[in-house]
């Protein structure tokens, strides 16, 4: 019998398993794929802050460091958010293939058992414990656990079977396609974001440098607004902007843009990362929140084992932690996303013009909103009402 079984060895799952193991719990981390970290389903950008809180930086999995971001309105108006000083890098572009493996190894080093090519099938509650059925290298395998942590991504089976999350609607998921391209001519000190209802309906296109003239060139679209699939829009974006370079990798993914879920727990079960729709509804960023959620889930699992209480009531401590850390931001950004989704290209252009050329030092959604409000007093009441 395990204290904790963690399903999914992405950032949330490995961080949860590591935290459990460090606190002396008997923990099993399972990954359905035979290789942790592949295929990648991510644009790989993360703020320095979000990463440093939970992981010691290792150059092995940093592909590039950036000092800021450039955002482009449909008519090309540029907004720059950047640190003025070189050496004050604010963001990283990761090499997820290496990063995810590194995290899983940290979990293993802390004492977690890690098993790959092992998928979660179902669970059954019995006498306050869970019987977890898995398929391990093709063979059925049943093990008992006190706690199950579902870090099984946007397609979370744990979350749906437990009835914690409901299926995403077409307006709650970004459908994404991305190429890793070589020989891309850009200033590698920045990440680039391109907006427009024609260009990327309900989403945006991006170029993230990965060093050595390579870059992640990708797009996310909202299926409720898009008229074609993400790859179609990506190819059009590359053609329109004349992005030259060879495609050396294709990456697809789906990002939940749901906002804050009511609760991420039920009896014996906690969800973390994309499984709990923890990705940001505006930026689509999810790694930092996943690390944070995984850490908290691990902490609460430890407390639950110590108290021998695995009820949803007790596990709600985990809800309190992630909600007060970043859940409120998901809630706010969902409202802001809904506001931005209503804007036509002309309005996006004029809003961008109103703050173009400003010196925005912080790379955050909040910094942009603050600048927008300074230049567009008529939006103040609107946004205020939205956020109450």
């Amino acid at each position, binding site marked *: 019998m395990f204290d904790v079984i963690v399903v999914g060895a992405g950032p949330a799952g490995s961080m949860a398993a590591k935290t459990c193991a460090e606190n002396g719990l008997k923990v099993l981390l399972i990954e359905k*794929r035979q290789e942790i970290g592949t295929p990648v389903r991510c644009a790989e950008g993360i703020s320095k802050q979000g990463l440093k809180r939970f992981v010691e930086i290792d150059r092995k999995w940093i592909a590039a460091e950036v000092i800021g971001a450039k955002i482009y309105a449909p008519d090309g108006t540029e907004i720059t958010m950047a640190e003025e000083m070189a050496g004050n890098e604010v963001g990283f572009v990761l090499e997820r293939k290496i990063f995810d493996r590194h995290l899983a190894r940290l979990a293993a080093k802390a004492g977690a058992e890690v098993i790959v090519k092992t998928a979660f099938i179902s669970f059954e509650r019995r006498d306050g414990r869970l019987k977890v059925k898995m398929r391990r290298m093709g063979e059925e395998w049943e093990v008992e656990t006190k706690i199950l942590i579902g870090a099984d*991504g946007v397609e979370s089976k744990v979350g749906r079977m437990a009835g914690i999350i409901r299926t995403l609607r077409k307006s709650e998921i970004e*459908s994404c396609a991305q190429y890793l391209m070589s020989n891309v001519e850009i200033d590698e000190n920045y990440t680039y974001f391109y907006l427009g209802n024609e260009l990327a309906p309900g989403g945006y296109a991006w170029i993230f440098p990965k060093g050595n003239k390579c870059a992640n060139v990708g797009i996310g679209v909202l299926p409720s607004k898009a008229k074609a699939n993400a790859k179609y829009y990506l190819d059009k974006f590359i053609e329109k902007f004349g992005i030259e370079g060879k495609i050396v990798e294709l990456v*697809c993914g789906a990002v939940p843009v749901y906002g804050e879920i009511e609760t991420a727990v039920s009896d014996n079960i906690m969800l973390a990362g994309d499984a709990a729709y923890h990705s940001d509804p505006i930026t689509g960023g999810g790694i930092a929140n996943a690390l944070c959620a995984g850490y908290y889930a691990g902490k609460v699992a430890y407390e639950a084992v110590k108290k021998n209480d695995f009820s949803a009531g007790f596990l709600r401590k985990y809800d309190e932690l992630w909600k007060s850390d970043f859940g409120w931001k998901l809630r706010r950004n969902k409202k802001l996303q809904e506001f931005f989704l209503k804007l036509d290209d002309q309005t996006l252009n004029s809003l961008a013009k109103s703050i173009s050329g400003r010196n925005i030092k912080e790379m955050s959604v909040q910094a942009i909103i603050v600048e927008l409000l300074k230049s567009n007093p008529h939006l103040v009441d609107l946004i205020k009402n939205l956020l109450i």
Partner: protein
Amino acid sequence: MARKAVVNRGKCAYCGACVAVCDFFALELVETYLEINENCNGCSICVKVCPMGALSLVEV
């Protein structure tokens, strides 16, 4: 005639978008292999969210 989703494996990029929107537990990403079972009722939401256009409906 009933309709059912089918996957073009040459196009599928194993991202799981379809699984995340399916109300009927009809799709599963087994390792990097998408399986569609008999629960599919041809609602077509998976076709709409697939970033690669790898899913389509066929008459059965």
